[in-house]
């Protein structure tokens, strides 16, 4: 259980984390999602006492991290894969970490096997790939068999096999009743890994809800309509709450209304519809929508129309299957 209250970190005039209040509950995987520079890593560093909050507080299992007499048994942390002396072997790194808590060589060997580092454990960490570094960081986090795990971008640099391994591992750990808090900027990964998601942007908490709820919330009310009388329909439904975009002749997307309302309006006006499809959002859309205003580093679009943030994609499974072909009268 991680509880943050009004957590704030300021670097000079720049606010990295801005009054964040959230709870990470045991028994599920909680994703910490946000664009680069959103304050995810800073928040995680404050949880384990590496950075000092400007104001606010955060506790793990009821106490500040530094107040635990055996912190590695409480919280396992992967902050970044490079928090290791490059001149030391993986085995010796783990051995030194273990020694602070009187954890024996047997457990060191166990976490090495568990993370698949056997072959490179005696090699100096400086020569490790990013993926091996991540595995070492995860091994280090598991050393104390902690009840809470905090993993900052654990799948960064892992091959597909490794990504799958991390996903299964964190879900397995959560099922055991542990608290798992992992950050990522990869929505697709979060969608399949996390049960609950905390979305941040520019240091602020944007959303804190179960994955399904976040996706549902962002699904919005966009409806795709195919009609030979697009112009007429557009005139008909356009209003202060309703926006209409046209992708190609005879195909429009209406946001702010519902499929039944559009269908009825079309029927009343005698407009023929060839397709009437409510579009469901993906986590990716939800995320883009939520963080559209809070991206720290904007990149210019390359060969793409601007503002993709409000365009839900029909590629989500189940979206097109609900298509209704309708011709009225």
């Amino acid at each position: 259980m991680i509880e943050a209250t009004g957590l704030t970190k300021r670097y000079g005039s720049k606010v990295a984390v801005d009054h964040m209040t959230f709870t990470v509950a045991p028994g599920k995987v909680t994703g910490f999602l946000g664009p680069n520079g959103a304050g995810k890593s800073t928040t995680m560093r404050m949880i384990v006492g590496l950075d000092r909050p400007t104001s606010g507080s955060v506790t793990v299992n009821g106490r500040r991290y530094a107040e635990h007499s055996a912190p590695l048994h409480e919280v396992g942390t992967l902050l970044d894969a490079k928090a290791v002396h490059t001149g030391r072997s993986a085995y010796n790194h783990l051995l030194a970490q273990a020694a602070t808590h009187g954890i024996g060589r047997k457990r060191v060997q166990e976490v090495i096997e568990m993370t698949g580092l056997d072959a490179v454990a005696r090699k100096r960490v400086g020569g490790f790939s990013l993926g091996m570094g991540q595995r070492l960081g995860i091994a280090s986090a598991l050393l104390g068999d902690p009840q809470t795990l905090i993993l900052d971008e654990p799948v960064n640099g892992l091959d597909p096999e490794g990504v799958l391994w991390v996903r299964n591992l964190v879900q397995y750990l959560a099922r055991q009743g542990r608290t798992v808090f992992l950050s990522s900027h990869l929505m697709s990964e979060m969608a399949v890994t996390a049960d609950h998601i905390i979305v941040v942007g520019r240091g602020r908490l944007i959303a804190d809800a179960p994955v399904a709820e976040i996706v549902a919330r962002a699904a919005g009310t966009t409806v795709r309509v195919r009609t030979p009388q697009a112009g007429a329909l557009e005139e008909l439904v356009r209003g202060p709450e309703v926006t209409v975009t046209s992708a190609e002749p005879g195909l429009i997307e209406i946001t702010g209304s519902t499929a039944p309302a559009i269908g009825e309006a079309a029927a009343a006006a005698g407009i023929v519809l060839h397709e009437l499809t409510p579009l469901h959002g993906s986590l990716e859309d939800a995320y883009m929508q939520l963080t559209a205003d809070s991206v720290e580093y904007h990149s210019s679009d390359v060969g793409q129309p601007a503002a993709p943030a409000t365009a839900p994609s029909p590629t989500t499974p189940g979206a097109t299957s609900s298509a209704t072909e309708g011709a009225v009268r």
Partner: protein
Amino acid sequence: MTTLSPTADPSTSRNRPRAGAPDRLGVTFPRVVASEWIKFRTVRAAAWTLPITALLMVGLAFLSAWGTSQLPADGDFMTPSAATLVTNGWLLAQLAVAVLAVLTITGEYGTGMVRSTFAANPKRLASLGAKALVLAVTVAATSAIALALAWLAVQPFASDLDLALDLADGETVRILLGTVLYLATIAVFAFAIGALLRHSAGAIAVVVGLLLVVDQVLPNLPLRFFEVTSPFLPSVAGTRLLYDADTLALIDAGRDTVNLTPWEGYGVLALWTVLLLVAAAVLVRRRDA
């Protein structure tokens, strides 16, 4: 990278009590010392600098004994005492020691290791103390062994130079013990500067500058302020422990400023070291890692 076992139980088969149970000591100072000892001996800095330290001590003792033996017997030279001859490698050895000391802490900041260290021991000060302790003990042990080897190395000239270490003689004991103590203290001194600056190159430059340049330059500036204060510079004061009475008299001749006794001088160096270490401790606790 083939052992992928997502279903392996991380809690293993052993029945562990919940965290915080009474049989768990958690982080204790001896455990932090054990951890720092593992860290100290598993990077290459120590494996290089400690043998170099010993080599410099032995080599310089041998060279100066040989050099002294080549002097014409009837010349009016001040022949060094046996203790001075055996210990005079300190001048170069202290540089190797200082580099090791700085790297002990800046290596952690430079690589990011310090975050792992402070995650395992969030109270931090024990880690700093344990590092300093491991460093001081190792440097002292290396110096002591190096002195013994240096004594063996000058044996070929023992009869020529009438060399004899009289361990009942206060000054001999002071110089031998003093060399060990001085090098260990310089190590902690340099370590504290490393902890303050957190940057290898910067800290090494500052320490070497303090040990060699400042101590050589400031006392010779023709300004009263420097004349009065320079006896209290860290290494000017500390090295008084390493000179025999004749050399001290030679250094002090013609100076009207304070002349510290050998142990007073060492006390001044120790005070500098403690002050820097306290400053480092305060900052290490306060700064983000």
